[in-house]
């Protein structure tokens, strides 16, 4: 025993509570973005106040309210599909393609089985097929990442276009509905195999239940399971995770597969809940908007839920914009982009000082 005094420098990390800053960022984004978008609308020669008033009054309508929830269910799943891989440090930009493949897989099963098997069973089979299809499509990108180091952001993006071409190829030829008019599409799904509606005559379907179940599942898995913990470690510092004996490759693969399965489920909800047949342009950027929802929510599952409702409301506003103000619905992408820019730019600013 020596009595040498060792002075330990006080280097304990300070716990920084930047929650207030985050909340502030959200407020600025949500309040500031409409101002900027309003300026663009005004330049276009449309009164921004009437645009916002139209958007808000249209949301107060219960029919529109249901439509927002229908859309939010798909966006929530699409957002979770980004959030889970993001926890492991992976960028899944391929939600759009995984949704399409999910819908195609569901449609494939549905078209074969919906006349022969009871509706409930068909629905279960379609859910499984959609999730497997989405997972496989995301798994392609994960496999490329792990074997030949192709960045998953690039590969998932490129696979989106391939997925859409696969769907178009199917509905223009082998799956084409011979009795359909105008746009080529697949045969509509039998009534019994569709997602059940909450109210007869309404539009709100059981998809929202599936989405909420997925939300709770993802939230619990990330928070309470070893798998969720490991994902976070890998996402935070993969080298540390590797040295701690975690098998980083399989973890990354699992995160991507789960993400893809969630996106596939989103495809099923949209197909069996709203569209009932495959048609060109049916996914209307759900994958990309889900990507933005996840970033808006900083990849936290519960916040993804909030972001999904917010973005769904904005998008529904886009439809009323098209009807009332004569602006293309895609104009609302500007509003979404501005919200995202403010959030992306404001939240990381303090951390940059290193």
């Amino acid at each position, binding site marked *: 025993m020596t009595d040498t005094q060792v002075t330990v420098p006080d280097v304990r990390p300070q716990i920084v509570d930047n929650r207030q800053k985050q909340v502030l960022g959200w407020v600025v984004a949500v309040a500031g973005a409409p101002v900027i978008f309003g300026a*663009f609308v005004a330049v*276009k020669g449309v009164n921004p106040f009437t645009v916002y008033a139209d958007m808000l009054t249209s949301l107060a309508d219960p029919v529109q309210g249901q439509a927002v929830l229908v859309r939010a269910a798909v966006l929530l799943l699409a957002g979770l599909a980004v959030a889970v891989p993001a926890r492991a*440090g*992976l*960028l899944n*930009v391929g939600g759009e393609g995984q949704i399409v493949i999910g819908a195609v897989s569901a449609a494939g099963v549905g078209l074969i089985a919906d006349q022969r098997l009871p509706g409930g069973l068909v629905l279960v089979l379609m859910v499984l097929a959609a999730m497997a299809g989405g997972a496989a499509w995301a798994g392609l990108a994960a496999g*490329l*990442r*792990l*074997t*030949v*180091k*192709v*960045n998953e*952001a*690039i*590969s998932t*993006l*490129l*696979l989106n*276009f*391939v997925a859409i*071409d*696969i769907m*178009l*190829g199917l509905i*223009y*030829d082998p799956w084409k509905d011979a009795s359909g008019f105008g746009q080529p599409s697949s045969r509509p799904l039998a009534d019994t195999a569709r997602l059940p509606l909450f109210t007869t005559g309404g539009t709100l379907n059981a998809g929202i239940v599936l989405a909420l179940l997925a939300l709770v599942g993802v939230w619990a898995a990330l928070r309470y399971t070893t798998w969720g913990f490991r994902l976070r470690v*890998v*996402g935070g510092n*993969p*080298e540390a995770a*590797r040295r701690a004996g975690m098998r*980083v*490759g399989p973890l*990354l693969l699992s995160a991507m597969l789960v993400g893809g399965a969630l996106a596939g489920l989103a495809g099923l909800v949209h197909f069996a809940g709203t569209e009932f047949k495959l048609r060109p342009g049916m996914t209307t950027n759900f994958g*990309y908007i889900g*990507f*933005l929802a996840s*970033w808006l929510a900083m990849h936290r599952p519960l916040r993804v839920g909030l972001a999904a409702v917010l973005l769904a409301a904005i998008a529904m506003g886009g439809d009323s914009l098209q009807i009332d103000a004569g*602006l*293309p619905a*895609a*104009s*609302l*992408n*500007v*509003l*979404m*982009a*501005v919200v*995202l*820019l403010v959030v*992306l*730019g*404001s939240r*990381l*600013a303090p*951390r*940059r000082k290193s």
Partner: protein
Amino acid sequence: MIVIEVLAGGVRGGTAILYAALGETLAERAGIINLGTEGSMLAGALTAYAITAETGSPWAGVVTGALAGALLAAVHVFMVVARGANQLATGLVVLFLGGGLTAMFGAAYVGRSITPFRPYAIPLLSDIPGLGPVLFDHDPLVYLSYLLAPALWWLLFRSRWGLIVRGAGEHPAALSAYGHSPKLVRYLAVIGGGLLTGIGGAHLSTAYANAWFENMTTGRGFIAVALVIFAAWHPLRAVGGAYLFGAALALSPALQARGYGFNQFVLDALPYLVTIAALIVLGRRRINAAPEDLSRVFDLTPSR
């Protein structure tokens, strides 16, 4: 001859991608990846089309289109450099911004007619059998791109200026030790890249399609981003890659015009599949060729 038709179509259709890929090469050499390339192309395409429609001069269109592309790229680089935002996510948001703005302001120009760029056959050179029609019977923007690619190569690899740009991409700390500002270099490189990308978009609307419609780039910006990696961040290799994609785009209409019945979507998917295949094949070399500071952005996690 179908081969000549497809090759000439490849040069014509690949030019827009080439401009975007050259712009992206410049930005990525300085260490910033811009997935918003597609947005810059759309901005360039619409602005060029609108200005051409209003003034009657496609050259005025190209200049303003380039500026519009640069403006969107400026949003990207500001967010990344000044605000420390994630490059890949910001790029996608910029793409949405460009797509939304062009949809909003472009609706009035759908179906408007313009006086587009006319192809100009270069005397003597265009008479060379085979090569002539493929390379020397095009619009002026194609000829400009013939000069631009070697010029960018010379600037990046043979000039002092290029050394500074590559320094910002490889080792920004060393660059600032020599008294240069990596941030300033990155601003200039990304905005300059946006200029070139805007010209690419302008070529699409005022020389290739001679029309404007919503989302008319249909993934060409993404192909350009992939092409930069495919070309291992080298401007001259990007030329070959761009024409390859252009040829893939030209093959489908050429075959259909000759009455070959087949499912065109298989061919439509080809450029994307070729890019993925190229990324796989070139995987190893690609890693070594990437600007050092840029690979930090790419390789968030090790592979195993």
